[in-house]
């Protein structure tokens, strides 16, 4: 049964979304988001949501009950918590955090950045949702009313209420008895998109750069997950050599030594060929580095990209993070080789945290 409160809940959610949208840039720039991430929920701090009142600050004090010596701490003194003491009335109503689903967050991101929906390539291998009229609901349009079920329901109710008379079997359905045909969506549970993250972990990439990469990756994940049924992720780190690692290692490894970008591209290619054939998968590659590369390796990398990787990918994103040590050459090499507006290759320079949002827009704005 639909309740009146649902409207208020919707309204509340709308306000939450509005508040998130308004502060999106702030949330995107702060890397604390993934600390708050659960399986498919994120909790977001929204301090401004509660209606403000004149009330007392931390120094109010209160009365409690139990054991303990004088001077013994009993609660942390943040904005919430104790301090209300026995004061009657309602408890503090300020919300600190609201939870939104990742899907919703992606939607907000999409709306705010005006990201186009992705059109998956090739129709055959994409998990589609099929609708089938094979279930029953309590609400629905009259045109879908299931007469038989409604009748049975009404009969059952009347019998249990004791108003059913076998010799005058008059069945009058009331609103609660109505049953309607309904459909279920049956998606094929197949992972059909893969994101391959590559990152330069040579000495010139500092923690700040990695944090930026991580933040970008979080939002890219969030968006792509909202576009595909299942998304697989693979991580490759490289200096002069490349290797595949898990997510945690990806963000926490630090190597020294030189940089050979082609090594990562080669590994990526191998991975695609063995595990993710291009005709079955939507492939997204993102490579982050500070743009430093060994002299002659640039050509090799460009070649690999042009001849092998790009034809297989939906999108190849190269994000160059500004660092104190890097020369920042590679992005220019790529630009020279492919031109600034390549169909599949997106180049983005990320100078600092503030630039993350724009960079995300560049990467995902193609709708590929």
């Amino acid at each position, binding site marked *: 049964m639909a309740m009146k409160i649902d409207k*208020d809940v919707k309204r509340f959610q709308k306000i939450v979304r509005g508040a998130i949208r308004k502060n999106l840039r702030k949330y995107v720039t702060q890397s604390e988001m993934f600390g708050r991430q659960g399986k498919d929920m994120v909790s977001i701090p929204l301090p401004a*949501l509660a209606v403000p*009142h004149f009330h007392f600050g931390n120094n109010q004090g209160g009365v*409690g009950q139990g054991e*303990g010596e004088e001077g013994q701490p009993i609660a942390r003194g943040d904005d919430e918590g104790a*301090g*209300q003491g026995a004061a*009657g009335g309602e408890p503090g109503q300020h919300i600190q955090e609201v939870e939104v689903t990742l899907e919703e967050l992606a939607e907000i991101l999409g709306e705010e950045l005006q990201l186009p929906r992705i059109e998956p390539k090739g129709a055959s291998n994409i998990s589609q949702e099929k609708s089938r009229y094979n279930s029953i609901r309590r609400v629905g349009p009259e045109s879908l009313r299931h007469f038989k079920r409604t009748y049975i329901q009404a009969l059952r109710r009347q019998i249990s209420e004791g108003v059913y008379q076998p010799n005058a079997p008059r069945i009058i359905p009331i609103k609660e008895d109505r049953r309607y045909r309904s459909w279920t969506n049956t998606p094929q549970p197949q992972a059909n998109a893969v994101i391959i993250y590559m990152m330069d972990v040579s000495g010139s990439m500092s923690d700040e750069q990695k944090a930026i990469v991580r933040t970008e990756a979080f939002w890219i994940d969030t968006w792509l997950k909202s576009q595909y049924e299942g998304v697989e992720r693979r991580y490759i780190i490289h200096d002069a050599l490349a290797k595949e690692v898990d997510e945690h290692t990806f963000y926490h490894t630090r190597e020294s030594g030189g940089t050979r970008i082609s090594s990562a591209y080669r590994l990526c290619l191998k991975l695609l060929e063995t595990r993710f054939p291009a005709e079955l998968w939507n492939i997204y590659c993102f490579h982050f580095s500070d743009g430093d590369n060994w002299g002659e390796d640039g050509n090799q990398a460009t070649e690999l990209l042009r001849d092998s990787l790009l034809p297989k990918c939906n999108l190849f994103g190269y994000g160059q993070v500004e660092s104190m040590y890097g020369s920042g050459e590679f992005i220019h090499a790529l630009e020279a080789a492919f031109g600034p507006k390549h169909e599949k290759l997106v180049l983005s320079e990320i100078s600092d945290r503030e630039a993350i949002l724009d960079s995300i827009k560049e990467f995902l704005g193609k709708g590929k």
Partner: protein
Amino acid sequence: MPRLQPFRDLPPELVEVQLQMEKHAREYGLDFFPTIFEVIDIEQLNAIAAYGGFPTRYPHWRFGMEYAKLSRGYAYGLQKIYEMVINTNPCYAYLLSSNALTDHKLVIAHVLGHSDFFKNNNWFSQTNRNMLDEMANHGNRIRRYMDRFGVDVVEEFVDTCLSIEDLIDIHSPFIQRFDTEEKYDFPGNTENPDDQPTAVGRFRAKSYMDPYVNPPEKLAEAERGREEAAKEAKPFPAEPMRDVMLFLLQHAPLKPWQQDVLSIIRDEAYYFAPQGQTKIMNEGWATFWHSTIMTRHGLEPNDVINYADHCAGTLATSPTRLNPYKIGLELFRHIEDRWNRGCFGEEYEQCDNLAAKQSWNTEAGLGREKIFEVRRIHNDQTFIDEFLTYDFCRQNKIFQFGYNDDSGYYEIESRYFKDVKRQLLANLTNLGRPQISVRDANYKNRNELFLEHRYEGVELKIDHAQATLENIYKLWTRPVSIETTLDDEQCVLSFDGGEHRVSTAKNGGSSESGSSESIVITN
């Protein structure tokens, strides 16, 4: 009688429980409103609880927020509302369908306690017992304004009003603050020519003699003097006004619909105020009676575990918050015990033999009578003030805690009876909210609003206070200031529509505050 939701009659077994409980309650002398119980599921109960008990309330997002919070708390197993009862006549109460029969019994007995309290406690005597209809009426009015002026506009205005919903004068229903005649005492009421102020200082004269008998320049001078005197003599409002909502309602430049919305929010605030004022007593009283009735009559052997479990949950104590159920219940028992044993009066107070005091018993047997009297006349504040004793504090291990700036923790500060009581009373004063009143509506002679916070050792939370000032500014449309104390120094927070200002004016607030240091915070 308006029926809520699809109304279902109580199942027969619960009807029987209700009759049985009512019989026991009456035998103990409880005098309650006719009480209508409804069994509803958890979603409905959460929804009604989110609406503060009134399913017919006006639409507002915060109810949705509350509902989301309650549902989540329930889903995670953190909290569960057992019962909901509203102060109306007849009294409506909701039972949770998933509860076991023992819980239903307990809840019914508990609700009858509340119902008796609503009916007989004096602090509830001025509340509207048809609030269910009134709330529906409020809902319709606000919905109509939303249709007419737009949801966003009205909702934003409701938010603004809610920001000051606690700025009411909780004692005003019982006090006549203003002469009733004042209503008709318009400043422009000059029908009677003899009352004309110009008649003062003027001699009767034929018209051709008038300029000589009453020289115009003398008259003008006298007039100026009077005007100035009048200006000095009449601050506005004449004395600080606690009911800030009423003041704004009467004097802020509001559109008719805005006035109506503000008055709705104010009415509801006044309706709910006594519940805040009597939280400890009300819950204590209901708990006292459910436990008395249940343990003496209601419990079947197979209920005992469930019942004990439930009670343990409700009566759990916490170091950070005084549980009103627990403290109220224990205090009522304490009072009953004292009056049963005659532990009151001069002779008892003056006895300084501890052993004698502890075994004091005059067989007075006045306990029952006393607690009924207490439930009739007291509110939490007077209840604690009158009956919280040293022994009680010690037995219940009550302590006083405070915030330690250095450690960032709340710490136990004292177990001295005096400290505990002082703190508890302070927390109960004005529902634990700061006392704020309108002092001057023509501040700086610029039609600015000047509020004062009566500082009693606890500072306001500045960011919230400033956000609240912004909302008051929306209503008053002229700069708004509040005088308060920060770091032991009197200061004035103001908002002029653009920026916030904190000025520490040592010469009070009513003169120019720009002379002293002032910090400007731009939004």
